[in-house]
């Protein structure tokens, strides 16, 4: 099948404004969009820039706007995208070049949530045990691959970049609801702010965007309730 890729190109060193590059290519319907991008880069225009690594939907490198929706290029097949496919960088982050965006602020917000096990009690002799039920409690939020689709799709984040964003909250949730973790008070302190969990307006774009099918809005809601329970 023949597809036309309309890719938003931008090189801040050369271009005054972003422009659309159009590339007609021959491809299989079962090819992924990432294959098409690779084809363009390897055979048509070597200057096309994008980030990718695993090509199997697990590293979270190649999130971008595909036909206007935040998706991983390695997880969508061309046959689901139509003849003309528009590809743009993720919204809300600074474009470094073409489809490559600056994720530094995003990752800094993630780190601000202390995404590691915090314990105060004395270390047990062996590992800290956990029942399968307790593990199940936060299973959904362990699936995050930090691709940035949810935060980049969040209108609250577009309106105000100070918001920590859904991805950071998802990763806080992963530890807040871990029975082995003892950092609840510190994390709740971080989340119980205007720019923390309370800037979420329950818009559900994050749920729509997540390539790992995490129920992000529910996780945020659970964090809100946890804060409420902690404070009353």
């Amino acid at each position: 099948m023949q597809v036309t890729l309309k890719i938003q190109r931008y090189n801040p060193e050369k271009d005054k404004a972003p422009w659309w590059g159009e590339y007609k290519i021959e491809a299989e319907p079962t090819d992924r969009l990432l294959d098409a991008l690779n084809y363009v880069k390897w055979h048509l225009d070597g200057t096309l820039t994008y980030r990718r690594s695993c090509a199997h939907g697990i590293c979270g490198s190649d999130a971008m706007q595909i036909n206007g929706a935040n998706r991983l290029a390695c997880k969508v097949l061309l046959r689901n995208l139509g003849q003309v496919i528009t590809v743009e960088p993720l919204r809300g982050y600074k474009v470094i070049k073409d489809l490559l965006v600056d994720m530094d602020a995003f990752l800094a917000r993630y780190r601000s949530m202390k995404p590691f096990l915090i314990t105060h009690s004395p270390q047990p002799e062996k590992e800290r045990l956990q029942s399968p039920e307790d593990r199940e409690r936060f299973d959904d939020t362990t699936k995050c691959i930090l691709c940035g689709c949810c935060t980049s799709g969040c209108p609250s984040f577009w309106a105000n970049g100070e918001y920590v964003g859904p991805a950071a909250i998802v990763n806080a949730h992963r530890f807040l609801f871990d029975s082995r973790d003892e950092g609840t008070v510190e994390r709740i302190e971080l989340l119980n702010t205007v720019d923390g969990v309370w800037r979420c307006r329950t818009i559900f774009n994050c749920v729509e965007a997540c390539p790992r099918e995490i129920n992000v809005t529910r996780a945020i809601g659970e964090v809100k309730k946890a804060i409420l329970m902690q404070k009353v």
Partner: protein
Amino acid sequence: MGAAGSPRPESGIELWAWMFMRVSGVVLLFLALGHLLIMHLINNVDHIDFQFVAQRYATPFWRTYDLVMLWLALIHGTNGVRMVLVDYISPRGWRAASLASLYVVSFILLTLGSLAILTFQPPLMGP
């Protein structure tokens, strides 16, 4: 963007604002539906006149009803607008100015409304 990754601690007012929105929303659902039912469906608007209001306000029940509805609705609405302003106005000066005018307007409306409800003296019913 400011200092990335360091959300500044706040007084926790956001938690109570969030809680208030939910509770007042549920209560208002009943109050407003009741209001709609009585004032617009059971009684035709044409029949609502001074006499009607005077009769209603002769008992403290309807005064309290209206007062609770006024306070909940006005604060609920003000908080909603506050969230929109905080979301979309980032420059400090503009944000402070818009919030201040919002609070002033809400305060005036709240005061006027409360005065009307609390100080209204129904004249003794004529024959």
